[in-house]
């Protein structure tokens, strides 16, 4: 079913923003963060205005309401991702979720000589924690290369790398290339060789239904802010088997069972990893975002975004001097289109696009190893989501063509 984009746009107050230079905002920086529908903003406001209270161990009405809302959000979000509330650990985002796997699971379960497999297209969030662990514990980190013609993972190299690996950490979708990795195949091969699997779904979750139970991954990291939710929250989805193997990471209140001056015992399950005052407003906001998203089929969102991205890619290819990194025409690609102009430097291009009201991201996108593989220091990246329109893409292409003609 086609989405009613006009009515969707009406849910996002920011989309009518006029920039200081008088231009209408065209927001094409969705891979960095998405905008938030009014209902998400309102739910957080309602929390602060009517029932703000610390959660857990609640013995008054407000605390009870806040705790209930917090736990209902967990249920809602867990269900959205095809898992149980007990398998969802709230974190501050995908980055903290991956650090939690490193500190809370790998630290306790991997040993010197063990192998972790990454790919060249990982975000720094899925590289640096493993490099640090590698330094500390003598773990070997391997990088699966990408084919720089097709921009896809070298699956032969993957199969070689995974043979004696303990953990495979792969991004569902590249935030730079928009390429969606063959995660089902990656999971299947990893399992064949007995390796556990962490999926970085920061980019995948806004574009595709992530069904944790069906995928049978061990860990999945997600950020709320890229999928209509607020800043400051995300989660780690973790299988019950891996959860059992985990030990404490950050410690303090709430995650304990009993504290004495002699020592402490900890809660079990997700509670062991959620210490301190919870991100209450954030969880409630994310719950509202997931509810908002649930009125659509993720497949429809993907198709809509893909259509714009594919068209934009096609038109960009017609502009002399523009080179695309990735393959927006691929049916599985997400809405991220990375490109460079051969003579207009990327920061300059960003400025000139901004002058037209177009918000695109420019830089290494926290993926320097991928930049190295592509042989460029940075790219410009336009990334689309549910509320973007064909008209926006058309005006973007027309402005880009104009800029290229005048500044090349």
């Amino acid at each position, binding site marked *: 079913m086609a989405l009613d984009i006009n009515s969707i746009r009406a849910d996002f107050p920011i989309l009518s923003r006029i920039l200081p230079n008088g231009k209408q905002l065209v927001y094409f920086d969705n891979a960095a963060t998405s905008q938030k529908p009014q209902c998400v903003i309102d739910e957080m406001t309602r929390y602060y205005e009517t029932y703000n209270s610390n*959660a*857990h*161990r*609640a*013995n008054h*009405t407000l*605390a*009870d309401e806040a*705790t*209930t809302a917090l*736990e209902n959000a967990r249920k809602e979000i867990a269900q959205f991702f095809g898992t149980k509330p007990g398998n969802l650990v709230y974190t501050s985002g995908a980055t903290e979720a991956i650090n939690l796997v490193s500190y809370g699971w790998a630290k306790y379960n991997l040993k010197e000589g063990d192998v972790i497999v990454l790919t060249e297209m990982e975000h720094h969030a899925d590289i640096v924690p493993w490099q640090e662990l590698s330094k500390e514990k003598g773990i070997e980190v391997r990088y699966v290369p990408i084919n720089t013609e097709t921009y896809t993972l070298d699956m032969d190299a993957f199969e070689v790398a995974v043979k004696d690996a303990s953990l495979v950490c792969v991004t569902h979708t590249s935030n730079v290339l928009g390429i969606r990795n063959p995660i089902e195949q990656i999971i299947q091969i990893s399992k064949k060789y007995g390796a556990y699997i962490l999926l970085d779904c920061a980019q995948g979750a806004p574009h595709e239904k992530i069904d944790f139970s069906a995928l049978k991954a061990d860990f999945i990291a997600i950020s709320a802010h890229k999928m209509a939710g607020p800043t400051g929250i995300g989660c780690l989805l973790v299988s019950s088997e891996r959860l059992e193997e985990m030990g404490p990471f950050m410690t303090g209140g709430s995650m304990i069972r009993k504290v004495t001056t002699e020592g402490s015992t900890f809660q079990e399950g997700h509670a062991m990893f959620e210490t301190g005052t919870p991100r209450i407003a954030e969880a409630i906001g994310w719950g509202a975002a997931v509810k908002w998203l649930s009125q659509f089929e993720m497949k429809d969102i993907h198709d809509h975004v893909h259509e714009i991205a594919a068209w934009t890619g096609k038109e960009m290819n017609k502009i002399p001097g523009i080179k695309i990194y990735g393959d927006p025409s691929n049916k599985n690609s997400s809405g991220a289109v990375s490109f460079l102009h051969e003579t207009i430097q990327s920061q300059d291009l960003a400025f000139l696009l901004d002058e037209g009201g177009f918000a695109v991201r420019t830089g290494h996108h926290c993926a320097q190893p991928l930049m190295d593989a592509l042989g460029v220091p940075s790219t410009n990246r336009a990334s689309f989501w549910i509320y973007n329109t064909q008209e926006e893409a058309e005006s973007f292409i027309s402005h880009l063509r104009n800029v290229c003609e005048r500044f090349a």
Partner: protein
Amino acid sequence: MEGASWPTHLTPIIEEFKDCFDSMERYELLFEYAKKHPSSLPIEEWNDKNQILGCQSRAHVKCSLDENGLFLLRAGADAQIVQGLMSITAITVNGMLPIEVAKLTPEFVKEMGLKSSLTPSRANGFLNMFNRVVSEAEVLSER
């Protein structure tokens, strides 16, 4: 909902609560029920096995069948509100067939005007105890 979801011998107690002037009076009444628990579990028998987890106060439950194969609930909690609710629960379930007990819902607490005792995050004292009773009844009915 069709019909009451509790045994008829509970109705007079519910009425008693409904007749209270305000919630303070209801809680006074509940405190009285806590004192006249028909089968309270003495503190000596509180142990890790019969402890209810997730409670903010200490609460213990022991379910068994009497010589006639009928349900016997023994419960003890240091919070009087939880103990009062368990007392009423015991009055309700003691002497019932376990298979009947297994079908019970905590609906009656709402009817008594003590709804706030039921919200899962707060008084999980009582709700957790109640759920334990129901699941033990299930097990006992399968014997």
